């Protein structure tokens, strides 16, 4: 139950077909869910499981390089999962505690999206995680850009890095994910800011089942990027209309209306305080400062003040 041994590509495909697709068909996009799921079907097409790794992101980079030297290409959607990570880190080299019990890994996505869609990929990770967590704990929310919180404490975090293949010049987006599922103890420095799904739900969670739900939600939401792009280019959707992914993000987020401190690296170098007034059509965070002036930020991070 606390292992990912049951998380396989075959199980994910079954889950997507039997559970995720019917659920999405009953959502606001209706029968379009079929096409969307097909677009995202590459997610988890290969799932590699490891007992222990230093960092899944490092292994993904190595695999891309090794494959390219052999004149091959890593399969887009390859997902590398480890039961524990010994050298995991967050942004700005912050440490990330990744003991057994959590869902730790990296998803390799070959970038075939146009820039306006590609820039939303980090938001997809937060949306998919929040959707999966809400199946167990409806109180989960997303904090801009993609932190997933329960009761103000972080349950899931993502590190997205672009990587250019040396041989092919192909651009990969490596989506590193760390989700506290059944791990319940945290180092002293994280104790006040972190929680896990099992702590919030009050019971242990089947890790493979959760992994399936998360990857299935990624399948749908990454598929939505492709679907929307195709329909805008084909002029079947008004390009000026809000992206459905951003509408979903707004539904899941508790950032809107909050007083926050913003910083490019908000932990070591907080920059200013403001109130979140919205997100723009590119995913940028709209902030109003105390003097009434407004700023839109497209990178950096926030922490809630109350």
């Amino acid at each position, binding site marked *: 139950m606390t292992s990912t041994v049951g998380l396989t590509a075959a199980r994910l495909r079954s889950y997507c077909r039997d559970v995720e697709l019917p659920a999405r068909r009953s959502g606001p996009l209706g029968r379009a869910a079929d096409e969307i799921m097909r677009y995202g079907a590459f997610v988890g097409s290969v799932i590699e499981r490891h007992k222990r790794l230093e960092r899944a992101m490092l292994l993904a980079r190595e695999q891309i390089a090794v494959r390219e030297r052999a004149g091959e290409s890593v399969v887009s959607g390859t997902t590398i999962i480890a039961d524990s990570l010994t050298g995991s880190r967050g942004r700005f080299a912050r440490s990330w505690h990744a003991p057994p019990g959590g869902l730790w890994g990296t998803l390799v996505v070959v970038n075939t999206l146009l820039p306006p869609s590609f820039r939303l990929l980090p938001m997809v990770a937060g949306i998919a995680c929040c959707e999966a967590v809400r199946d167990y704990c409806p109180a989960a929310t997303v904090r801009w850009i993609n932190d997933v919180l329960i009761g103000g404490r972080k349950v899931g975090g993502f590190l997205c890095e672009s990587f*250019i293949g040396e041989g092919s010049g192909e651009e990969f987006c490596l989506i590193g994910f760390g989700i506290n599922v059944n791990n319940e103890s945290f180092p002293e420095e994280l104790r006040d800011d972190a929680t896990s799904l099992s702590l919030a739900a009050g019971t242990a969670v089947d890790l493979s089942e959760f992994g399936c739900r998360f990857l299935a939600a990624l399948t749908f939401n990454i598929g939505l990027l492709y679907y929307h792009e195709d329909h805008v280019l084909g002029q079947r959707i008004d390009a000026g209309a809000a992206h459905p992914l951003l509408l979903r993000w707004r539904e899941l987020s508790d950032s809107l209306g909050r007083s926050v401190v913003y910083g*490019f690296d908000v932990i070591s170098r907080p*920059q200013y305080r403001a109130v979140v007034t919205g997100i723009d059509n590119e995913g940028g965070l709209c902030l109003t400062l105390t003097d009434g002036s407004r700023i839109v930020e497209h990178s950096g991070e926030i922490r809630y003040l109350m």
Partner: protein
Amino acid sequence: MSNEIDFDEILAKYRSDPYNYIQVRAPHTGVINYRVDKGQAVDAPSGEWQHIPGTTLFEITREKNRKPLCSPITGIVSELKAELEGCFVEAGEKLMTIRYPLKKKDIIENILKEVLYLFRAPEKAKYFFALDVQSRIDKKGARSVIIKPGDEILTMSLMKRDTPVYYAGEEGVIHSVYFEPGISVDQGEPLIGVCGADKVPLIQKVITRVKAEWDNI
């Protein structure tokens, strides 16, 4: 970069016209409505985070979407294509010129930008030095850090996606850093200025000479 710089020629150029000129162009197609006149003074963005917009120069309307465009600099509108008022223009159409006086620091920077190799921002984003480069800068200072083509020197951060930026240019030391971590850099703007290690004394000579000469102008 030549080892010989004709200081007299360079300084004469700045003496005869101690201004810089910014061409303001339409960012996309649309109908133009000016909000300034020729000769009018305009202000740059202000505030601690440069969050208070500068003077509105014009509005451009496309498909009922009206967008104000503001001055990026404090100066004077020295030229304005008044005949375009109310007209539909193409992206890139020149609309006006803003002139602003150069300070000693601007002149040094302008000269350095002519003699340094400028590595420019590939996208509008926020940038920071790669961890390895930053630790070398912290230990020895930027002007002791030698970089060569292919080195991962910067990280570009956009929507919490970090992209390594590899240096493509001549090998040399990082002489000038034009960005601040946490502040957005527009696409094409210089991030760093690089010169060969043997050229550093020459660069220092440029700076010293301009500092001395400009006081007399």
